[in-house]
């Protein structure tokens, strides 16, 4: 089976390639936007000399390039997405790029597509405090209320479902929580926000839905090779720390921070004031937090990875070890 991995130069994408190779996939196409990292290619080739690894460069926004990208491919692992920029940029790189890829894949008769989605698509605002967060939680209708990233990823999932119905390919979706690891982001906004020389600790006692990047990549590879058509998976590790514990470890191991803890009730109230001010001032300050966002992302929930484990996945890197590796890397590579 020839597998195409999109976004293979990315933080997660490059690990997905490694995980697929380790899981025995030996015919891969790696998609990059411009040029592949020579060091990465050397590493993959040296560890898996028997594997065929073909680099295919294409901008997913350039539709004419995509038939060649998907030619001869049996399965696509779609990990490319817009992670930065304006709302329009993020939407274009996530949704328009996905639509172009799915059009090409549908026309080429690609049999199976695995989408790397996100926790951001879940509609969690209505969940009770401490509720179990598994794959039964519905996804947002639009995600607009949760900001540009959630909006783009939600539209991407709806689009994926539309195309699955149209073309009938096998569809698998993985929704990782906060992907972390050396080279990745340090302090998720679920933990808090740095502003005016202070770190506002927002997550408090809520569990932080972490997944170490290698574990996440293993999950994606396993799902690509083994999951049933239509399967959906949360991707979170075991032994998740609270946001408070994560921040404590970060401050101890990586850098000193002046921290201002914000209780949940104060956060809800503050976000409500911010939203009101945003409207009254005609957008002078952006409504980065709204009561909907706070209720959706900062209430304590219990994250389940049972579905993924039933597929045979176990996190190879324990959370304590993953945190240690990450903290050490960040300490040695100051931002």
């Amino acid at each position, binding site marked *: 089976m020839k597998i195409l991995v999109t976004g293979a130069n990315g933080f997660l994408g490059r690990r997905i390639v490694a995980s697929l190779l380790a899981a025995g996939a030996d015919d891969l196409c790696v998609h990059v*936007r*411009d*040029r592949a990292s020579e060091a990465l290619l050397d590493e993959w080739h040296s560890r898996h000399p028997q594997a065929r690894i073909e680099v295919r460069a294409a*901008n997913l*926004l*350039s539709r004419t390039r995509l038939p060649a990208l998907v030619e001869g491919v049996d399965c696509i692992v779609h990990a490319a997405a817009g992670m*930065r*920029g*304006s*709302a*329009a*940029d993020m*939407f*274009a790189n996530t*949704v*328009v790029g996905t*639509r172009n890829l799915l059009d090409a894949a549908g026309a080429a008769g690609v049999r199976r597509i695995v989408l790397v989605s996100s926790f951001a698509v879940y509609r969690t605002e209505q969940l009770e405090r401490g509720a179990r967060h598994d794959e039964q939680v519905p996804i947002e209708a*639009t995600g*607009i209320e949760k900001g540009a990233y959630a*909006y783009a990823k939600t*539209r991407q999932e709806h689009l994926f479902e539309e195309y699955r119905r149209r073309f009938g390919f096998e569809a698998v979706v993985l929704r990782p929580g906060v992907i972390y690891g050396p080279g990745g982001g340090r302090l998720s906004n679920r933990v808090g926000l740095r502003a005016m020389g202070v770190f506002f600790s927002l997550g408090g006692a809520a569990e932080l839905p972490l997944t170490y990047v290698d574990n996440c990549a293993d999950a994606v590879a396993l799902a690509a090779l083994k999951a049933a058509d239509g399967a959906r998976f949360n991707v979170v590790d075991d032994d998740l720390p609270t946001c408070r514990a994560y921040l404590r470890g970060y401050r101890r191991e990586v850098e000193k921070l002046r921290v201002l803890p914000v209780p949940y009730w104060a956060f809800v109230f503050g976000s409500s004031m911010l939203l009101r001010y945003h409207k*009254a*001032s*005609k*957008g*002078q300050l952006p409504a980065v937090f709204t009561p909907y966002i706070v209720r959706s992302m900062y209430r304590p929930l219990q994250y389940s990875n049972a579905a993924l484990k039933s597929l045979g996945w176990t996190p190879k890197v324990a959370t304590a070890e993953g945190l240690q590796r990450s903290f050490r890397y960040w300490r040695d590579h100051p931002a």
Partner: protein
Amino acid sequence: MRTTPHARATAGIALHHGSVRVLKTAVIGCGKIADSHVEQVRAIGAAEIVAACDREPLMAEQLAQRWDIPGQFTDALEMLRTTRPDVVHIATPPDSHVALATMALEHGCHVFVEKPFALTAADAATILDAAARAGRRVSVNYLYNFERPALELQRLLADGKLGRVVHLESHYGYNLAGDYGVAVLGDPEHWVHRLPGKLFHNVLDHVLAKIAPFVDDDFTLQATAFRLRADSGNPVLDAMADELRFTIKGGNGVTASGTVSAHARPAAHSLRVAGTIDTVELDYAARTLVRSARQSQPSAIGRLFPPFVQARQFRRNAWRNVADFGRSKSHYFQCMRVLLARFYGAIDGRDEDPVAPAQILRVCRMIDAIVEQTRSPA
């Protein structure tokens, strides 16, 4: 085309709020700058946004959905015929401006164009002529000329506080590590690479629009551009220079110099205006305007005073900024809000054109000259 019930109800009729006629506005081009157009038009309350139009249906959808705009279109002509907007904002890549602006003007719309106004001065003249023939207003997003320090500069000039302007220095910095820079450098097919002046073509308006009111049309210009970035190996990317220096001498004797730099830190956004009576320095990022230091007392004693005088000026600027914030006049695009208020005022006949057509044309001619002189590979 897709419309919501609201769109169908309002299509083709003028909207009225009370007794005041509210104009109908459409936005063509739904990329990132379109958000600013929608937000600022809404903020001034002069128009109802009736349509979002983009060749890419998903992009029209996202702008319409995020801003609750009733109409979504992928064809500009169909949009013009269906919604009959009074005003069209054009926020597409610049190589489409002539066709879209003239089409909108022919349909009786006033047109507000995102910078750069056109690819060449000839194209700019085509748009301006079409506006004159149609009797419609046309303007361009030279927003920084409406930033608070720039408005203050206009007052100082009108009051004769600077005397006759003899020289200007305009500086603009660009961080290629930012989101936009990463997008441009990561994609050889990005539309910026299609512009004759590449990266500079997209930012020169910010530098030249501040100079154009002072230098006449009989100008001469010298420019040099080069690349400080390391080779990427991609010929398209490497053809893009990232440093520009230029000097201009007007037939009226006013001179100007300017820089666009992707490497100088902090990224500058400033203007220095030297007059026969006084000189002022404007910082657009910090929103300050201060008169240049001058030594009014003799000898060593005289050197003690200027920094205190400067400090007092900066303190005044700081409090003015605080006051602006308190009055909700400190939005990042407050300057665009002022410009649009004047543009919509001009449509209503209350104001003059916020940017004179002659100045638009002059800026485009200056860009032509810079492109001509820097066309050789970096």
